[in-house]
């Protein structure tokens, strides 16, 4: 397999064992508990899927963060998406991640699966052709972070250039650095270091994270998603913590350039601009989202279809808001494993395969 030339060394068992030993040695020297926030939902899953946590010493504690775009989207967004189908005559296109997320009443887009009015796409590339193939408006649910926003922007710019007139974007993008600032500004924050998201950083580079170290004295290391990538990032983190140094480092150099991907950011900037965004749990954060620029208003579903502003309403007892801030553990939620399971999820942390609760349910718990 051609690609394994690059990736295979990052899945190497012996290297993993050596890195784990060294992490154990350094962490042993620290002594106290080291709380590392894994910002990104893909890290939440990858750490558990590869059994990384089983290789690490007991005093390294992982806390899940807000990097699960589904988890941080308020339930009202799904209600609006359903309205687009049921009241506004639109067809909704979305990534698979959003299909099972419940709205405040517990309904989800899966009610329309197979109806032709809900289309699941793997890539925004499909959107221009999909729009051309259907009658009526096609609204794409624009969920994601800076990793995904450039791709969606590219697809929409292409649609505009090609004269596709029935494609609209319901933008709910979130940007990571502002959320991190909100987290560390909270007096209750007890995070010692950040495992920073690898693919978001591919786009934005390292600069947007510097404030963590410079203003708050908290180190952060950008990590990739192969097992060795994560172990390397964790080793750098514990070294920084052991030395009492706050720095922002890149352990995913083969993919992340310090300056990020400027071409991707320029594409994003042609369609999108910073906007306030409502995060489950964190509330409304200025400049933490991306919305359509005024010159792209004709593609803006929120404006064109007159959608209600979002309200964040969690079902009674649901603690997703605390979980995504790292203030509660999944099994600290009274609903976890009882009325809230992957089969019958109450909140998005359980619906999303990247949510902390879903990950804890699937990979954790039992003593093995």
């Amino acid at each position, binding site marked *: *397999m*051609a*690609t394994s*030339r*690059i*990736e295979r*060394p*990052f899945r190497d068992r012996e*290297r993993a064992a*050596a*890195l784990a*030993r*060294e992490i154990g*040695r*350094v962490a042993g020297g620290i002594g106290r508990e080291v709380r590392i926030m894994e910002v*990104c*939902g*893909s890290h939440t899953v990858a750490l558990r899927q590869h059994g990384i946590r089983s290789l690490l010493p007991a005093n390294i504690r992982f806390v899940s963060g807000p*990097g*699960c*775009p589904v988890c941080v989207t308020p339930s009202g967004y799904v209600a609006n998406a359903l309205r687009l189908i049921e009241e506004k005559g639109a067809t909704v296109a979305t*990534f698979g991640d959003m299909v099972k997320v419940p709205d405040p009443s517990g309904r989800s887009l899966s009610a329309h699966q197979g109806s032709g009015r809900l289309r699941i796409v*793997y*890539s*925004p*590339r*499909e959107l221009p052709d999909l729009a051309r193939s259907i009658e009526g408006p096609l609204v794409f649910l624009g969920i*994601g*972070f800076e*990793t*995904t926003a*450039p*791709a969606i922007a*590219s*697809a929409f710019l*292409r649609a505009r250039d090609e004269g596709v007139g029935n494609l609209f974007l319901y933008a709910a993008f979130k940007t990571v650095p502002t959320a991190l600032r909100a987290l560390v500004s909270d007096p209750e924050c007890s995070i010692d270091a950040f495992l920073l*998201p*690898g*693919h*978001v950083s*591919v*786009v934005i580079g390292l600069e947007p994270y510097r404030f963590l170290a410079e203003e708050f004295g908290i180190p952060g290391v950008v990590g990739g*998603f192969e097992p*060795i990538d994560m172990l*390397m990032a964790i*080793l750098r983190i514990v*070294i920084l913590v052991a030395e009492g140094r706050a720095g922002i480092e890149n*352990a995913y*150099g*083969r*993919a*992340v*350039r310090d300056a990020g*991907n400027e*071409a*991707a950011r320029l*594409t994003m900037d042609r369609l999108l601009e910073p906007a306030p965004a409502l995060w489950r749990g964190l509330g409304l954060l200025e400049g933490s989202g991306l919305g359509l620029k005024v010159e792209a208003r004709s593609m803006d579903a929120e404006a064109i279809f007159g959608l209600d502003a979002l309200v964040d309403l969690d079902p009674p007892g649901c603690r997703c808001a605390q979980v995504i801030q790292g203030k509660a553990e999944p099994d600290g939620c009274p609903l976890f494993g009882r009325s809230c399971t992957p089969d019958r999820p109450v909140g998005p942390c359980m619906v999303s395969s*990247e949510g902390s609760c879903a990950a804890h349910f699937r990979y954790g718990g039992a003593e093995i």
Partner: protein
Amino acid sequence: MCLAVPLELTEILDSRTAVATSGDVTLEVDVSLLRDPAPGDFVIVHAGYAIEKLDRDEAERTLSLFDELARHGDLAD
């Protein structure tokens, strides 16, 4: 939050599109977010878009550095 897989670009079809391959799996990917994509480039692909080229030299450097770290413990920056 961001699944992305490493693939090799084997053919550039036009200014936007390339064929990316891993073994027998091929898919078309959008390369408009890259500067100067070329056959032979290894890239990471997210949701059908190549979002960056993979730097193989850097990969090797990183591995060597961490193999050192894992062996020795302290390493001056």
